[in-house]
């Protein structure tokens, strides 16, 4: 039940109205205005609400490809896969930065324009709002009965009483010759500005975090350690302002990792909980402390956070070469092929083996059961761990200078040792497999687990959070508070009260408030004693009972439906004058003369 739309035009500085004016100006475009005129026109257009609206749409539209195509910043592996699967298409997509949408020039152009538009709109508005806050509420219009909410009161209400009653309701009040003017709800605009400024701050915080922060990934096997230095990372993504010295000098050892899974039922094998036990040293000289690292519970060392983001198996092997020397002895991190059973693929490279280099592919089965001629894993926990080993001999290709993934075996210069079978007999822990052609042997010595960690330092986190919180507060203020004005004119013992809400859609609630105000004023009017003037601000209670003996059934203002629609008609208003009001000097419907 909002006031009619044309009400907006009753109020000069309503944003919508401002907008129409501005657009009118835009339409009379700068034909022959010269560079200054063009610049002003550009600036006006850029900071107009319509442009902001279009930019908002573009912003939304622009981020959609980021969800359709794999993104390098999120998952470079999937981007590489895309290039492999659709090379021609990928090349074109890449030309339009569609694998790097959120760091692409066109996306940056949209949000920079949006935020220039935002800044260009918000700062002038902030200045005029500050002026407005300082300004006194405007003088009462001549005919209050023409306002969407109005009422005639009889019974000797004085201006002082009216002013005091409005002050009690936290209105800002000024009085003039025969009138009182009151206004409330400045916080709406304050909230709106707070929201928009908070968005600007948020953008800066995110940007600063990207410049001064870093992110890195590392894989750690049980028993191994990590110390925070660039060289220790598997993948390190620094902001452009990060130097090696800015890394927090902490270190830790992974003592143990435990994963638990649902043991039976429909959800068998679903992970329940992960726990990594670390021994942490905050600095090289600090005393070690024990830390339980869990998902959703990162390790925090002076703002550098370490997150548990993945895990897997690292079976340990001892490889003895053809000359009888131990050429490899240690864990090999394997990648899970299948999350439900943790069947994992491993690659063992033994470049030191003599007389030729050895390489192995291995399949790790955490809970092995025979399945016909084959073996499969049926559970992700390591209840019956075995490995199936596929040995190769030859040149591992490490000397070529090409960087190689530790998870892939380049078999181009390798030849299988012995007869290759798709399902070699699995080795249990402790079992040894003799290699064909006297190339040596490989022993499956045990099972360890690895965890993958993300380590981040982002100095923009807290400012971004504060800005986001401010945005929510501003938003709530700007969407819930109504700006409203109430005027009272007193002439010859008859008072007229008029009200106006300056916020779209606030009509219904204001009608209620207006009715309460009128009831309160009426109470003052008939209380007839000047002592009814309590000092302002001591009782902001919105529904103080009327201090008179009027029957409670009296309709307060007749505005329950709140929807007057169009021009207020006087007959409707005078109809609300209480029947028992003393009819003295002014007949209903007689308008007080203007001064």
């Amino acid at each position: 039940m909002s006031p009619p739309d044309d009400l907006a035009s009753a109020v000069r500085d309503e944003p919508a109205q401002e907008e129409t004016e501005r657009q009118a100006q835009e339409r009379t475009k700068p034909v022959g205005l010269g560079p200054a005129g063009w610049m002003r026109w550009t600036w006006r257009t850029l900071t107009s609400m319509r442009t902001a609206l279009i930019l908002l749409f573009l912003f939304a539209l622009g981020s959609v490809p980021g969800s359709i195509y794999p993104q390098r910043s999120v998952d470079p592996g999937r981007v590489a896969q895309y290039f492999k699967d659709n090379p021609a298409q990928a090349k074109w997509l890449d030309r339009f930065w569609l694998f790097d949408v959120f760091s692409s020039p066109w996306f940056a152009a949209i949000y920079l324009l949006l935020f220039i538009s935002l800044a260009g709109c918000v700062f002038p508005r902030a200045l005029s709002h500050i002026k407005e806050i300082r300004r006194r509420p405007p003088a009462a219009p001549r005919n209050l009965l023409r306002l969407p909410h109005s009422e005639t009161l009889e019974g000797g209400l004085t201006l002082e009483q009216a002013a005091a009653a409005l002050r009690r309701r936290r209105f800002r009040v000024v009085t003039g010759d025969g009138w009182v003017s009151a206004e409330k709800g400045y916080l709406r605009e304050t909230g709106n500005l707070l929201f928009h400024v908070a968005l600007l701050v948020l953008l800066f915080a995110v940007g600063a975090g990207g410049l001064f922060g870093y992110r890195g990934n590392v894989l750690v096997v049980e028993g191994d350690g990590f110390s925070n230095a660039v060289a220790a990372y598997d993948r390190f993504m620094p902001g452009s302002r990060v130097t090696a010295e800015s890394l927090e000098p902490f270190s830790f050892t992974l003592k143990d990792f435990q994963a638990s899974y649902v043991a039976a039922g429909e959800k068998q094998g679903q992970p329940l909980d992960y726990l990594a036990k670390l021994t942490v040293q905050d600095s090289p000289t600090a005393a070690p402390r024990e830390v339980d690292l869990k998902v959703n519970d990162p390790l925090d060392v002076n703002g550098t956070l370490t997150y548990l983001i993945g895990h897997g198996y690292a079976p340990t092997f001892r490889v003895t070469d053809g000359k009888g020397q131990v050429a490899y002895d240690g864990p090999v991190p394997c990648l899970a092929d299948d999350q439900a059973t943790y069947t994992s693929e491993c690659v063992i490279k033994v470049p030191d083996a003599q007389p030729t280099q050895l390489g192995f592919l291995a399949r790790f089965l955490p809970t092995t059961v025979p399945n016909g001629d084959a073996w499969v894993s049926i559970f992700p926990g390591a209840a019956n761990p075995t490995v199936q080993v596929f040995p190769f001999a030859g040149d591992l290709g490490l000397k070529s200078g090409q960087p190689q993934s530790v998870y892939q075996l380049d078999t181009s210069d390798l030849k299988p040792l012995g007869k290759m079978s798709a399902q070699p007999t699995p080795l249990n822990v402790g079992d040894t497999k003799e290699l064909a052609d006297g190339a040596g042997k490989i022993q499956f010595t045990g099972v360890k687990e690895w965890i993958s960690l993300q380590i981040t330092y982002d100095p923009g986190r807290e400012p971004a959070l504060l800005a986001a919180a401010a945005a929510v507060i501003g938003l709530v203020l700007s969407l819930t508070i109504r700006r409203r004005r109430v005027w009272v004119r007193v002439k010859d013992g008859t008072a007229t009260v008029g009200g106006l809400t300056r916020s779209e859609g606030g009509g219904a609630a204001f009608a209620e408030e207006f009715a309460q105000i009128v009831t309160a004023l009426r109470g003052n009017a008939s209380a007839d004693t000047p002592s009814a003037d309590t000092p302002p601000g001591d009782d902001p209670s919105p529904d103080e009972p009327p201090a008179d003996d009027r029957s409670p059934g009296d309709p307060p203002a007749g505005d329950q439906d709140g929807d007057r629609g169009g021009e207020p008609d006087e007959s409707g208003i005078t109809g609300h004058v209480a029947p028992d009001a003393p009819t003295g000097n002014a007949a209903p419907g007689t308008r007080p003369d203007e001064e």
Partner: protein
Amino acid sequence: MPAEVNESLATLSDQLILATVLLYLVAMICYALDLAFGRARTVVAVRRRQLVGAGGPAAPEDTTGDATEDSGPQPATWAVRAGTIGVVLTWIAWAGNLGGILTRGIAVDRWPWANMYEFVVAICFAAVTAFLALLIRQPIRFLGAFVTVTAALGLGFAVLFLHVQAGPVMPALHSYWIAIHVTAAIVASGLFILAGVCAILYLIRRDGRPSVLPSREGLERVAHRAIVIAFPIWTFAVIAGALWADRAWGRYWGWDPKEVWAFVTWVVYAAYLHARATAGWRGKAAMIVSLIAFGCLLFNLIGVNIFFSGLHSYADVPQ
């Protein structure tokens, strides 16, 4: 972490949800009867009174029914009563829906909105709650048929296509943030559904023709009110999601598909609020913007879980 599931409670939850679907459908029929037979008459009566020029409140809720039309269908007090029965049934179904959610939560000893089935059930509940809460103060009974049918379709879809056995969840979901982030998202989504229903009715409704629906202005007003309440809650939900991501994944914003679409939804709803305050966009254009935003919300809820893979992939959609 407890892995035991109280099977009998879980079964009770499934049965309650089924009963709720049926009750929503019956309520929908009651509302529809009210709309079809209990209101047409009222509208005619109102029109006649306006012709007579008697003035007075012409709210569609005005069902005094004393002014009868000879040419129209017989006065159907039973139809008006059907509307009341619809409201009562909606409250009962609402209680059943709530019971279904609570029993599932107790059965698995965690917050009962950790997979897509549970999430959709909770959103339907939120939409009906929003409707009933607004109904207490506003004459929006006309929405009853549309809200209950939406809730019944949503729940039916969840039961048929999304249902998974009650059970424990991934370690990443063991966090108090699920209570904050997901709850806020559910509440906001429920309100957005209400606004979406109003927006669709707005586009169907033609002003100037007799209709059982309130005027376009009235529909627009309900939609706007719902969005104004929902938008800050959605904003909060997105921020809470970022805070959770900061706890769980080591960054507060990473343009994961779910994040992208939450953001898109947010931006388009913000665009709606701007459109409503921009000359030339008010009214129909703004309503269409709100429907685009609603489409983004639904796509984020369903499409993203099915079509994209990302970190948010514990939605546990049955294959």
